[in-house]
């Protein structure tokens, strides 16, 4: 679901076709009939943005037919845990959960806790700051806290207590009937029921099923909850931690997993440690306390060793126990500093310099115009790339130059373009989608001024240190004390191998590399750049460089590359064995307890303490890893269990709930609450929204629009539109429409059409195909269209920027933009150009009655409507325009 694996991950898809050849059933549940659908047993269509309704229907089917894997569910999930008496569900509050504050559009999640655990201090933080604080700081980083979860949580093993998770789940999803699924998703009932039958029949002791998703699930205003919904299904069916089971994120870039693990993200430090928060974690003690709340289970308990070892790697000898290991050197965050916020701050003149490192936001980010206007209002910008991408040349040939919104002679941004070394001209590791690090050897030297990013940042650091040497300014200390002496080779190129050793970590008393994060200490005697990667250099060997041929090892190929953590291929694989530590079935054996040797063993590296017996019961008062029972497979969780219900950790509710997309043509048939009540909106004149019910005039943009990739191109095109083979294979931007829609709008196959939203209009060639099927939703026909988004104004083949059609509305937990669904109009012929384009789009906005407040009244249940979430504007024309600076 939400993935076109055959097209976007074609070489990975060989395993799906091979499984199918061996008898596996493959369902492709997606708005579009794609190359994946063509190879599946069945394509199940649904309306873009309704996957939670579909999955909620599956959960309801499982629960109402008693098809859950009861033994697994009872032992390994929180199904029997009892939730507080004052918890109110979306069932009770017309789509909202208890604790909602319409003024801040955020929840106080206190009432979502288990009956006898305590809310953490953060849960009762000043409510007006909660959304900022929690979103920025808490989520995506470490595990959600549940104070006291290591103690005895009140349970009802019979699952009959009305407030136990199982019963709450049952009530919450009772209305997600097959009929409702059809009404919301447009999926014919018999298609939906077939999926339910096959999925449940193919799960249990002897069989497992897997779910695959991609950005078709994440790029939504409720994206995190899509994945939660799939996790609930998979936990109920016993498909987590077992071979052939799981929820697989197919990520889209060579090291996008690595870019999350060793983040270049504002809210994270390496290894999912949070960035410190200005108000809640002013010092090391409070920071550690925040990560490992009192009386919790699990490995986050050792967060002190992880952060202290990181600080030792950052600041070396300067980091001492007396100065909190330089914790104070870390900058603090206090809200949303994500990429979209930053771009708006550029437009508002608050940011001066910008580094683009192999990224082309002028094409690849939502609301391209916002991106380009932001770049046009900087002091300076550095672009490092292989080719001359659109983001480097916005000042001379962007669409805004044609409309007159950017005038080169008036644009003050100073631009430095640095040619980059390619993947074969440098050594280093990528982390692929299954958390596997693979080392690349360098094949040849780069030429001319081409350099690696490793070189660039190492050099920049050296030069900053040199320039600031002798400074007595306290704010320069973190740079001056920074440990930056990495080994170099071939002149001044830093050794990636040496950097990887530092990421792995050292025992500072012996100077040797550590073997795993279990060796890390909180007393300053170890250093480690990323605790979850610790072990990649175990035994002093670059484990990521291992390439033992597949034919010489078993199916798990443990000697090819290295997978974090500790080379475990299947996370939480303790769950592949029953309570007594025996495989649930011989067919599905993965790891098991070896009674004779007194340890866990199996085909994979056990994701459990190796010598903790399955029947182990910890002594009272134990915390951290020692509080994990022998049957607590989810060793990173505060209670050791898989969460059907999330008592903490999510900003938009403990259970996935269907909300309509930010821009939708229909009213939510399930609840009075239309969209995600906590989604992040930016009410600004330069970020208009298409109206969605209950707002009037949604009929001006009557069609559902989604975007996707093609196998022949790569995201924003920097690595494909300049490559002749690939450009020849897919030269033109096109829009796929159904024959019915083509007739209704007078669109001609292979002719031109343009797609319009409240942001802009985009030209594309028309592809009329019955791959796009109109769906019947709430007694009306909904047409969906899609476009690939790879094109821009440069390269061997050019086209309009599809991302210009989108506005910025974000998922509240992780700040991802909703670019997988919006509404639009589509018209035959080409769009107007220049100033006429601006007038054309303005007329659309006027017809749709769009104002600053459109789309910003996020609460829509009775009595809560009316609060709009807009930003202060500068004068009647809104934010400053870049040309005004000239």
């Amino acid at each position, binding site marked *: 679901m939400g993935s076109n694996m055959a097209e976007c991950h074609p070489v990975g898809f060989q395993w799906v076709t091979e499984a199918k050849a061996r008898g596996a059933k493959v369902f492709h549940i997606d708005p579009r009939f794609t190359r994946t659908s063509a190879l599946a047993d069945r394509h199940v269509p649904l309306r873009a943005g309704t996957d939670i309704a579909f999955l909620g229907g599956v959960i309801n089917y499982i629960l109402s037919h008693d098809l859950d894997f009861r033994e697994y569910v009872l032992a390994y999930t929180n199904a029997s845990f009892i939730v507080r008496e004052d918890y109110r569900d979306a069932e009770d509050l017309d789509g909202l959960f208890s604790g909602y504050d319409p003024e801040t559009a955020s929840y106080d999640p206190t009432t979502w806790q288990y009956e006898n655990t305590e809310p953490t201090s953060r849960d009762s933080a000043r409510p007006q700051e909660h959304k900022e604080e929690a979103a920025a700081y808490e989520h995506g980083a470490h595990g959600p806290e549940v104070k006291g979860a290591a103690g005895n949580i009140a349970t009802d093993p019979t699952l009959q207590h009305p407030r136990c998770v199982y019963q709450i789940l049952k009530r919450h999803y009772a209305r997600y009937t097959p009929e409702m699924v059809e009404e919301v998703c447009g999926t014919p009932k018999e298609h939906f029921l077939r999926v339910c039958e096959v999925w449940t029949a193919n799960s249990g002791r002897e069989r497992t099923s897997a779910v695959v998703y991609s950005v078709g699930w994440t790029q939504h205003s409720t994206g995190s909850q899509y994945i939660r919904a799939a996790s609930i299904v998979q936990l109920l069916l016993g498909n987590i931690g077992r071979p052939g089971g799981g929820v697989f994120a197919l990520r889209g870039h060579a090291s996008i997993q690595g870019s999350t693990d060793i983040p270049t993200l504002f809210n994270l430090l390496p290894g999912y440690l949070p960035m410190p928060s200005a108000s809640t974690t002013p010092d090391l003690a409070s920071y550690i306390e925040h990560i490992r709340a009192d009386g919790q289970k699990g490995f986050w308990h050792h967060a002190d060793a992880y952060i202290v070892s990181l600080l030792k790697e950052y600041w070396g000898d300067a980091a001492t126990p007396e100065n909190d290991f330089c914790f104070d050197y870390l900058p603090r965050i206090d809200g949303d500093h994500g990429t979209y916020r930053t771009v708006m701050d550029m437009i508002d003149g608050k940011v001066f310099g910008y580094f683009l490192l192999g990224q082309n936001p002028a094409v690849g980010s939502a609301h391209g115009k916002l991106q380009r206007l932001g770049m046009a209002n900087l002091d300076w910008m550095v672009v490092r790339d292989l*080719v001359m991408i659109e983001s480097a040349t916005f000042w001379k040939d962007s669409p805004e130059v044609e409309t007159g919104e950017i005038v080169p002679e008036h*644009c003050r941004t100073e631009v430095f373009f640095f040619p980059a070394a390619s993947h074969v001209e440098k050594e280093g590791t990528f982390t692929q989608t299954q958390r596997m690090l693979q080392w690349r050897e360098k094949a040849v030297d780069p030429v001319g001024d081409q350099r690696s990013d490793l070189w660039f940042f190492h050099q920049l650091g050296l030069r900053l240190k040199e320039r600031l040497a002798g400074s007595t300014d306290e704010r320069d200390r973190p740079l001056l004390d920074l440990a930056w002496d990495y080994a170099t080779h071939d002149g001044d190129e830093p050794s990636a191998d040496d950097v990887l050793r530092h990421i792995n970590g050292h025992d500072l008393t012996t100077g040797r590399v550590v073997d795993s994060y279990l060796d890390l200490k909180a007393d300053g005697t170890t250093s480690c750049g990323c605790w979850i990667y610790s072990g990649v250099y175990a035994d002093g060997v670059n484990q990521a460089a291992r390439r033992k041929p597949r034919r010489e090892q078993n199916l798990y190929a443990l000697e090819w590359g290295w997978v974090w953590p500790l080379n475990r291929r299947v996370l939480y694989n303790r769950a592949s064995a029953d309570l007594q530590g025996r495989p649930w079935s011989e067919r599905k054996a993965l790891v098991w307890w070896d009674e004779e040797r007194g340890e866990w063993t199996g085909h994979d590296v056990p994701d459990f303490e190796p010598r903790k017996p399955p029947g182990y019961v910890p002594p009272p008062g134990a915390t951290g890893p020692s509080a994990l029972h022998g049957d607590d497979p989810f060793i990173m969780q505060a209670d050791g269990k898989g969460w059907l219900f999330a008592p903490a950790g999510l900003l938009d509710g403990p259970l996935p709930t269907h909300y309509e997309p930010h821009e939708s043509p229909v009213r939510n048939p399930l609840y009075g609450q239309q969209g995600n009540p906590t989604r992040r909106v930016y009410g600004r004149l330069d970020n208009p929204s298409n109206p969605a019910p209950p707002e009037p005039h949604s009929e001006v943009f009557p069609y559902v629009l989604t975007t996707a990739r093609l196998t022949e191109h790569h995201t924003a095109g920097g690595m494909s539109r300049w490559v002749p083979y690939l450009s020849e294979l897919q030269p033109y931007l096109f829009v796929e429409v159904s024959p019915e829609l083509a007739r209704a709008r007078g669109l001609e196959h292979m002719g031109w059409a343009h797609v319009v939203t409240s942001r802009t209009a985009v030209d594309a060639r028309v592809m009329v195909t019955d791959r796009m099927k109109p769906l019947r939703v709430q007694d009306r026909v909904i047409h969906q269209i899609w476009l690939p988004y790879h094109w821009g104004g440069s390269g061997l083949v050019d086209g309009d920027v599809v991302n210009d059609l989108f506005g910025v509305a974000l998922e509240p937990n992780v700040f991802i933009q909703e670019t997988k669904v919006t509404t639009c109009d589509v018209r035959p012929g080409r769009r107007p150009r220049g100033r006429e384009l601006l007038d054309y789009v303005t007329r659309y906005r006027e017809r749709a009655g769009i104002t600053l407040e459109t789309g910003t009244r996020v609460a829509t249940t009775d009595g809560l409507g009316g609060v709009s979430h807009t930003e202060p504007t500068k004068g009647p024309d809104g934010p400053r325009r870049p040309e005004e600076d000239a």
Partner: protein
Amino acid sequence: MGIRTWIRSWPVYRQLTGDDPLGRGTAAQSPRSAALGARTTSADRTARSVCPFCAVGCAQNVYVKDGRIVQIEGDPDSPISRGRLCPKGSASKQLVTGPQRERKVLYRAPYATEWTELDLDTAMDMVTDRVIEARRKGWQDTDAHGNRLRRTMGIAGLGGATLDNEENYLIKKLFTAMGAVQIENQARI
């Protein structure tokens, strides 16, 4: 050329007498194509690499001859890809050796309408100066409640997800030491 060789050079003869009666293989081969060898066999060395496009992580063998890349192919040893590459992975040689690659540092001055060339070392120094200035301009010591911030909001970054782990590590480390928090990645998008 002997008479026997001359007769054998005639495709019809080979088709009638050899094991290629349909004339679609060796019988129809010209001396030139018979003499051709794979670039992979004549390469000086092979670097073991990984495809830079999607996140499947297909293993690549990069064949190098005389210091130049002559071919890039899938590595059959890989348990992930079993030697296969998709259209993008198969085009990687063109990606890394094509004329589209920029080789020189280019500079666009404020209000300029064209690029000019700049020496790499000079450019690095200019960027260093600008980082120091933007850092100071955007510096924040405390928030409105007096909480310590110790950061600059003057500098931002956005990285692609083809950056190596080691590169991301140094980027985050340096940005953090600068006090810059607005460092983001495709992983957010």
